[in-house]
């Protein structure tokens, strides 16, 4: 079939066109927007699932836009990391189904079509970001996803929503600008924008000053996008103030694009054994990651707001991923990349559970949530599975990747970082135990009755919690899937 050949571009075009048509549809019928957005994302999920299977069977797929071959034309390059497109699409599908009832209550009616438009646009940007093989294309998709994310933070209109969004926008815009600058610097010395071509030409370069500056700018900018300490200051407010389904998208998926960006840049520079000796970069990555783990966990410990706590927990988990990349060992890298996907799944579960609780009770402070385990037993059961996963208790999916990162630290003979990882896990257990304690073991002030969230919320939460468990039990498959990518990244340059 000829249409199958064009799937690599359709996976971006379908949500992009969907986002353009949603406001038009809203002129005709506002209620139809939700159904239309669901259909668009469902179609995207099917296409991206098909592509993932194709990558699994055939290995990386290259698609030339407009039939122009790579160094000149724009290339869509699907490797194992691009399988993230399926994770993005399927998680957003569940989030959109969840948000139907949530936004009816949380947003004004005329904002609802805008909400769905922005979500679909955001998904289009993220999918484009992970599948593209062209550096400038990467920048454009990054801007699409960032701009829609800034707007989504402000859409709730809560007390400091606009201010949180502005803070996010200012930091995000500066980091995007620096990424554009470093792309320009690389282009001026390499004369190409295709990532694989850049990697080849970089090895033939005699002076490394300009690529070095570009690398530094890339790293710092993607640190802002990924909210790595000390550039995380925008994250807690922005993620806590947004409507809960948006928090799930931001914390689970949008932040991860920063990590994907770092991995893409690393695949150009071939840091681990290429022409550059960048042991110092790995040193910085692992230290910054270790500090993020501890700082994030430390601040999360003192939060009373449940969403604020989850937001700080994201910083600490991003620390795990950055540390795993900085270790520069196969196991650490595999653990990191799988943790990108697993943490997306876990964080979406947790934020949606928190959203269901806020939707039902209207409370978001931990002290007001006593007895919630009896009032909403199913939601709390799913949340407990999410909590076990994020702490990393077997047999959940969080265990496997953290285990691999620790193995990576031991493989790299950096025992100090292995210890940091374990201490971080203990701290995380500490603050999540607070939620479990309040939900199940504290006596509520008033009588609680069974009052569960609606089905359109329970079903996505249930699927997410079940997949947390399933991906823990069948953890071997994602690890095996991502291994070729990690080995390719660690392979020294040359034939």
């Amino acid at each position, binding site marked *: 079939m000829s249409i199958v050949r064009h799937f690599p571009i359709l996976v971006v075009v379908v949500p992009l066109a969907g986002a353009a048509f949603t406001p038009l549809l809203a002129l005709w019928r506002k209620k139809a927007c939700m159904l239309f957005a669901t259909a668009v994302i469902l179609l995207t999920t099917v296409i991206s699932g098909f592509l993932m299977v194709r990558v699994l069977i055939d290995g990386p797929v290259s698609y030339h836009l407009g039939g122009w071959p790579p160094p000149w034309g724009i290339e869509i390059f699907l490797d194992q990391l691009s399988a993230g497109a399926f994770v993005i699409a399927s998680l957003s599908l569940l989030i959109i189904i969840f948000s139907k009832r949530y936004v009816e209550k949380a947003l004004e009616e005329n904002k609802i079509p805008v909400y769905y438009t922005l979500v679909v646009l955001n998904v289009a940007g993220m999918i484009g970001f992970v599948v593209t093989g062209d550096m400038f294309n990467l920048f454009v998709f990054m*801007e699409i996803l960032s701009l829609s994310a800034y707007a989504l933070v402000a859409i709730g209109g809560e007390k400091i929503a*606009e201010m949180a969004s502005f803070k996010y926008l*200012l930091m995000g815009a500066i980091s995007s600008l620096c990424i554009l600058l470093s792309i320009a610097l690389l282009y001026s010395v390499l004369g190409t924008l295709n990532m694989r071509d850049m990697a080849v030409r970089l090895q033939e370069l005699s002076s490394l000053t300009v690529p070095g500056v570009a690398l530094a700018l890339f790293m710092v900018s993607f640190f802002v996008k990924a909210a790595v300490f000390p550039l995380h200051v925008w994250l807690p407010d922005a993620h806590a103030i947004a409507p809960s389904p948006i928090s799930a998208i931001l914390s689970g998926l949008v932040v991860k694009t920063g990590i994907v960006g770092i991995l893409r840049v690393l695949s150009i520079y071939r840091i681990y054994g290429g022409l550059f000796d960048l042991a110092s970069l790995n040193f910085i990555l692992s230290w910054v990651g270790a500090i993020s783990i501890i700082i994030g966990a430390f601040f999360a410990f003192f939060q009373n707001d449940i969403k604020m706590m989850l937001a700080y927990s994201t910083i600490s988990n991003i620390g795990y991923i950055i540390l795993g990349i900085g270790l520069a060992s196969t196991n650490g890298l595999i653990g990191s990349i799988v943790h990108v996907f697993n943490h997306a799944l876990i964080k979406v579960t947790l934020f949606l559970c928190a959203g269901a609780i806020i939707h039902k009770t209207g409370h978001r402070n931990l002290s007001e949530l006593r007895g919630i385990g009896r009032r909403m037993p199913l939601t709390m059961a799913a949340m407990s599975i999410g909590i076990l996963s994020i702490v990393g208790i077997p047999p959940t999916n969080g265990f496997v990747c953290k285990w691999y990162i620790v193995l990576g630290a031991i493989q790299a003979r950096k025992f100090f970082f292995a210890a940091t990882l374990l201490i971080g896990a203990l701290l995380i257990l500490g603050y999540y135990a607070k939620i479990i304690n309040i939900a199940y073991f504290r006596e509520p002030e008033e009588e609680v009755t069974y009052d569960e969230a609606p089905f359109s919320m329970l079903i996505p939460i249930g699927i997410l919690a079940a997949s947390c468990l399933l991906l823990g039990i069948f953890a071997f498959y994602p690890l095996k899937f991502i291994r070729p990518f990690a080995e390719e990244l660690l392979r020294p340059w040359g034939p």
Partner: protein
Amino acid sequence: MTFQKLLVNFNYVVAATLFLIGLYCVMVKSNLIKKFMGLNIMETSVFLLVVSTGWVRGGKAPIMVGVSEKASFVNPLPQALILTGIVVAVSTTALALALMIKIYERCGTLDAEKLKGME
């Protein structure tokens, strides 16, 4: 010699200066609109730098007439990239200004120091 080098690469010097002026505005000014104007200046400087990289002294517009054309051409790709970059910058600015209107409606000020106290 150094002076001559600077003169030849005049547009790069201007780009670097503009970048620093913009960075100063973003970091020092407390009015949100001035902060954002600083960001716009930074963006302009990057655009100038990118367009400069594609420029060739005495180059023509890259329109091929006949195959035996020997004259040097200006690289059109950076210009095309920067057109996209300008569109991105405009939409970022529009969103930021809309947010600032909302902030002003709610808080009655755009001074970053005063806003910090209101959070």
